[in-house]
């Protein structure tokens, strides 16, 4: 693990948020688009641990909250939890494996979106659960998981990890 400048973190997340609300629509298949912000949170948590994961999660969640019409701060808490848990288990996972990246993204997406759904439902009426799960959450989790290795490769180039001694 090595330190990351908070400004760098903010810049990467801000740019990703911009991509998410503009260019991600070009990647839309039917109503499904990849969650680029979630991938970035997983990346920072994987590389930086729990604290960086939480910081990235809160910031990414705050921006996602700002750019969606759902209840405010629900995404912040959800993504912060993703950052925490990925950071917590990072040493037990082989991060460089493509399968690990895909599997973690898939699991995080499913867990975070199901958590968000039940959490946001307290404040706002959410669409029916069955329809949401089968029409949106599962297809979007697969789409996001497929995208994860690509984003990891790009971010690895921007923020290369230190070689282990």
């Amino acid at each position: 693990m090595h330190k990351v400048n908070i400004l760098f973190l903010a810049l990467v997340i801000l740019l990703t948020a911009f991509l998410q609300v503009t260019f991600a629509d070009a990647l839309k298949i039917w109503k499904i688009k990849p969650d680029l912000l979630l991938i970035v949170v997983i990346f920072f948590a994987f590389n930086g641990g729990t604290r960086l994961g939480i910081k990235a999660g809160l910031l990414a969640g705050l921006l996602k909250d700002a750019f969606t019409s759902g209840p405010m701060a629900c995404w912040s808490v959800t993504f912060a939890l993703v950052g925490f848990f990925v950071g917590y288990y990072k040493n037990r996972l082989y991060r460089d494996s493509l399968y690990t990246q895909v599997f973690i993204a898939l699991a995080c997406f499913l867990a975070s979106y199901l958590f968000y759904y039940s959490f946001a439902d307290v404040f706002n009426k959410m669409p029916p659960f069955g329809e949401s799960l089968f029409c949106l959450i599962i297809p979007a989790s697969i789409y996001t998981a497929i995208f994860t290795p690509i984003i990891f490769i790009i971010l690895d180039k921007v923020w290369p990890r230190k070689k282990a001694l």
Partner: protein
Amino acid sequence: MNLKKASAFFTIFFIFLLLLIIPTQTKGQVRVFVTNTVMPGFKAINAVYRLPSILFKGSKLKRENIELKKEIDRLKSQIVKLNEAELENQRLKQLLELDKSSSGYSVPARVIARDSSIWRDSLILDKGRSKNIKKNMIAITNQGLVGRVTESGPWFSRVMVISDPNSRVSAVVQRSREQGIIEGNVRGQIRLKYLDADADVQVDDIVVTSGMGSVFPKGIMIGKIYKVKTDKTFMYKYAFIKPAANLKKIEEVLCTK
């Protein structure tokens, strides 16, 4: 779990508790604040993105073209309104009332972002309260209705698109005057619901706003029916609508009262 990790976890728990006790209005203000804070950055990136087209396409001609297109948009929407008014005249209703309900100022705005959530369908516009865009104004294009302004900050506003699962628009079938409610769903479909089981609705019927509820003015084009179905209980009919406005590729809208 060591102390550092436990403290990190409790930070999230604290935010979670805070979230539960903060009033919804305050949360809305926080959202407006965050969106406003990042908006200049978003506008700057958008401007950079559009720079080549501004430089290479002849700015004066382009401006004239944009103005003329806006004029055409206004005229086309007027035609839809006039058709509706003509029908209304035939039924001996006062045109004056329609003019009163639909007249008002309008503000053109550019779409700079879309909802990042998979559940919602909303647009973020580059203009807000400073340009007189207020909550509950409606957003239209030359083709038809886009949605309703649900949030308005100083320099941005948010439009809930008619395909959003939380959107409700009272509508009427132009030919038969059958009334229903337009709703979106998670599949991205738009349905005209709560039609009577014996309602006279057919494929290719035009659906317009009914003016009920006073948010959406009467006679704005919503779309065409492409499929009619009967509810499982056989008590209602519902129809699938193809929106007149291309909701997936909206770049500019006209916000009007």
